[in-house]
């Protein structure tokens, strides 16, 4: 059967997305996993273009590839001595079986198989309507923008999303900050504050967070 250009494009992009996703979850080298994740994100941006949501394609590239992937690569770099992890943990077979089962249920039993078994699609949506959907409105981005700021529509989730981003930014910086010098300074200050007793002659005991010995011996 003759495929149109868009169908060929869809199949190519789908193969790119799925193959790179499989490589993300099975490769040993974490840096390669991050790069394959980037390829997968590009594929998803291609899907958005095919779905007439070009704005979201640009946003996907900017946010996922320009920011989140960089975060992943930095995290991989900062935890570098464990970069080559094992391929799968002790339960990977069960995980594969569960994932395959969910895929079969979701994609096949609720999808094309429903058409065959029940004679109609599952739910109210026509999943292969030969007439095709209506066209989007010409000002869809403007409508989205207006919707996000009007209090009849999505202004409250928008503001909550802004607060969430602020909290996440501050929280991530606070959680991941370098702790050592602060703790040492706090200890010195605490020791200097209550030096009425006899411990002025002794050096200040600094409590650095020590790694747990049991974990150190377990690592090879």
């Amino acid at each position, binding site marked *: 059967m003759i495929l149109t250009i868009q169908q060929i494009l869809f199949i190519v992009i789908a193969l790119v997305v799925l193959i790179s996703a499989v490589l993300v979850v099975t490769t040993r080298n974490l840096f390669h996993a991050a790069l394959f994740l980037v390829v997968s994100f590009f594929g998803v941006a291609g*899907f958005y273009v095919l779905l007439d949501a070009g704005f979201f394609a640009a946003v996907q590239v900017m*946010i996922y590839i320009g920011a989140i992937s960089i975060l992943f690569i930095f995290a991989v770099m900062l935890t570098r001595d*464990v970069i080559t992890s094992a391929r*799968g943990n002790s339960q*990977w077979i069960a995980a594969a079986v569960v994932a395959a089962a969910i895929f079969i249920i979701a994609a096949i039993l609720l999808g094309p198989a429903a058409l065959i078994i029940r004679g109609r699609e599952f739910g109210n949506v026509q999943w292969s309507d030969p007439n095709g959907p209506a066209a989007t409105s010409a000002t869809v981005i403007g409508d989205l923008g207006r919707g996000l700021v009007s209090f009849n529509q999505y202004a409250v989730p928008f503001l909550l999303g802004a607060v*969430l981003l602020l909290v996440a930014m501050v929280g991530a910086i606070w959680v991941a900050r370098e702790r050592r010098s602060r703790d040492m300074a706090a200890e010195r200050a605490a020791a200097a504050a209550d030096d009425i007793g006899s411990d002025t002659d002794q050096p200040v005991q600094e409590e650095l967070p020590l790694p747990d010995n049991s974990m150190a011996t377990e690592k090879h």
Partner: protein
Amino acid sequence: MLNGIPLFWYLIVSAALFCIGLYGVMARKNTIAMLMGVELMLNAVNINLIAFWRYVTPKSTAGLAFAAFIFVVAAAEAAVGLGLIISVYRNTRSVDPEKIDSLKL
């Protein structure tokens, strides 16, 4: 059937991507790799939402707004999750989720 692509093609791809991400979360030995699986799942959900928006309600913007909020939440969650992983790594020198199992370090 937009450009000859029926809706369920997108749904099958999105379900496959979701299941691959699920496998990544359940079967990997490194928390950063688990977070990569979570990002794949979020992407799959986004494809699903935008496909349904395009094919079922192309004139309204509800699906698009939903997808936009998922972008926001994914970014925030990736940032905080990676910050936590780095902090845990600094304290215990390990990113193996099976070893980080005590509440008191």
